[in-house]
């Protein structure tokens, strides 16, 4: 009886605190990620009916830029919940350690084991947790079943990058060069290089963020493959928007990105339902690693938020519950990094848009093979250098990929002051 009374009292207290949370929570995010967060609002409002959540889609670059400006201004004009890419996160903690709330003070420590360790490496500094892991970006190839079939390409036969190029030649022959095997943002971004380098266990920096490792063999091989794709004319050069236009216009047979691109394809080309499929990215050599990670984000809570309890409650509901993560997976294809979410029944369901393939299983199965890589606070410096070096190498400015990356390492070192690894 006593126990029951206590439980009732506790339950009442629980509802009371849920009821007492009120006000508005403003969330900054981008594109599909913003829509995904919006999709978790109904379940959040079931628990906290008095909190109004306002998700603002500023676009990816704008969120980053305005966040930095806001932190520099001592937290002025910041939202209550801030979206942040893992790669870029460390610059915030390094330059503005006071701009974001240590989530441990709100009880986030209990989620330490709920997410894979690699998601926390960039979000936790010392004993502080600056952001809660959100989605991850296991890389896969999205492909057009119909176009592959017409060109006589079997996706199961594509196991290495050489196979991919051979398939691209078939696609070129079939469509007279009108349809390309992939789209690379050469000159705008170095994503393909990063995905391939990560696959080969190489990245700009080592995992302790003390050395520049971009001139190591795994990266050299990655850059060489990017060049080969261009030399064989199987990819087109275009930016983010151009790629979307291209696949909508049936000019792209496949696309490679982090799995979060699923939502981009599905929502932009709803009329191509059933025509798409997914297979793991090709390996550098037969039997090699066919997994990589691109992007993946987290949510942080600016110190200047006036409504921290409600903001934290929103983050918890969206990220730290299976329901929240799976809701976002369903609505926008954001790949959960919450470990329990991957066991949800939905992950093993066939997806009609993807030709009834169990795409989420295919995608999540690669997660365990993803080599770790760390963005560090110098991510943007390194990226700016690499975008140029990649474009120059493709254009023929360097003799070998090793020369190009030696030069890149030298430039990144000049910009960051970090030494180049021997």
């Amino acid at each position: 009886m006593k126990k029951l009374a206590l439980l009732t009292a506790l339950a009442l207290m629980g509802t009371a605190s849920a009821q007492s949370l009120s006000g508005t929570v403003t969330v900054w995010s981008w594109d599909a990620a913003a829509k995904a967060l919006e999709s978790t609002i109904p379940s959040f409002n079931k628990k906290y009916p008095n909190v109004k959540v306002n998700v603002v889609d500023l676009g990816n670059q704008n969120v980053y830029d305005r966040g930095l400006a806001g932190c520099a201004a001592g937290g002025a004009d910041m939202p209550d919940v801030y979206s942040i890419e893992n790669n870029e996160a460390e610059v915030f903690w390094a330059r503005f350690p006071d701009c974001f709330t240590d989530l441990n003070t709100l009880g986030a420590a209990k989620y330490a084991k709920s997410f894979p360790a690699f998601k926390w490496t960039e979000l936790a500094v010392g004993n502080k947790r600056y952001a809660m892991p959100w989605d991850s970006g296991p890389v896969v190839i999205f492909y057009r079943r119909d176009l592959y079939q017409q060109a006589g390409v079997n996706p199961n036969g594509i196991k290495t990058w050489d196979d991919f190029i051979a398939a691209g030649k078939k696609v070129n022959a079939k469509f007279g060069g009108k349809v390309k095997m992939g789209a690379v943002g050469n000159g705008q971004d170095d994503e393909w290089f990063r995905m391939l380098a990560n696959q080969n266990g190489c990245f700009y920096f080592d995992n302790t963020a003390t050395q520049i490792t971009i001139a190591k063999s795994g990266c050299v091989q990655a850059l060489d493959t990017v060049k080969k794709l261009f030399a064989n004319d199987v990819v087109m050069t275009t930016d983010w928007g151009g790629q979307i236009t291209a696949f909508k216009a049936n000019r792209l047979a496949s696309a490679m990105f982090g799995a979060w691109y699923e939502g981009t394809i599905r929502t932009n080309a709803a009329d191509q339902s059933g025509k798409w499929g997914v297979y793991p990215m090709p390996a550098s050599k037969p039997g090699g690693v066919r997994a990589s990670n691109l992007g993946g984000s987290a949510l942080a809570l600016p110190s200047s938020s006036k409504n921290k309890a409600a903001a934290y409650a929103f983050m918890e509901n969206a990220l730290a519950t299976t329901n929240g993560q799976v809701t976002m997976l369903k609505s926008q294809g954001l790949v959960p990094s919450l470990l329990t979410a991957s066991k949800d029944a939905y992950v093993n369901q066939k997806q009609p848009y993807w030709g009834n393939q169990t795409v989420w299983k295919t995608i999540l199965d690669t997660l365990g093979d993803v080599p770790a890589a760390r963005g560090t606070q110098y991510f943007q410096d390194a990226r700016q250098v690499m975008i140029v070096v990649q474009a120059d190498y493709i254009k023929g400015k360097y003799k070998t990929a090793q020369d190009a990356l030696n030069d890149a390492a030298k430039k990144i070192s000049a910009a960051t002051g970090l030494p180049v690894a021997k």
Partner: protein
Amino acid sequence: MTTVPTPAPPTRRRRRVPLAPYLFILPYLLIFATFWAWPIVSSFLMSFKDSRLGAAAGYGLSNWQRLIGDEFFRTALKNTLVILVIQVPLMLTLATTLAVALNSRLLRARGLFRFAFFAPLVVGTVAYSAVFRLLFNGEFGIVNRALSGLGLPQVDWLNQPVPAMAVIILAMTWRWTGYNAIILLAGLQGIPEDVYEAAAIDGATPWQQFWKMTLPLLRPTLLFCVVLSVIGTLQLFTEPALITNSGPGNATMTLGTYLYQQGFRSFNFGYASAIAYAVAALAAIFSFAQLRLFGRDS
């Protein structure tokens, strides 16, 4: 003491002049000091600070040392100068031609034309950049459609260095020619009519009139346009940032976009401040040189 005239009668006047006017301009002075003077001083101080290591960082010359050896800064400087050397003369030649044409009494509906040439300046920069991106899209843009319609080869405008630079120059010319033409037109209208009458009586051809009279008399106005355009180009940001995103690679990166990259992408405010001061110094040197070279007897 008697030989030195006192500058102002003492006592009475001194008591009357002081406070009120200063009180009236005080709000302005405060705003000026806070939002103009202080940032200028602060960014100068910041250019000596290694802002990336956080609050603990000290002052030094590291940013300036980096600037001297920085390949990216040299690329940005080179690109900016290329635009300066090609775009400014191109634009001002066009603007002068336009201004002379607009000034012609043979032209009907001059007001309409003046508006039409000035209109690009009224269009929002983001909107016009988006339109240029669409026009010059390699796969789907109307420019490439037109080129192939004429039997000419298509150009991958935004993904190749030289074409991308050409797009930037075209976009800037489209936007700013009319503006300069209107200023030059005002200059033309300041030239007295009787000068031309006298020239006509002396038998000068219109061509001779243009070269021997219009241009020399227009020089102060042209100089004004040149100085403004040069300073504007040194600070160029909008077009390369929004149309080509400084790319491909760094092919259209300017001093302005490099400064932005360092400031707001890498968040290296110290280094960005050093770049800003380098740009300011360049602008000062260029303006001084132009005034000395072309500004004589005016």
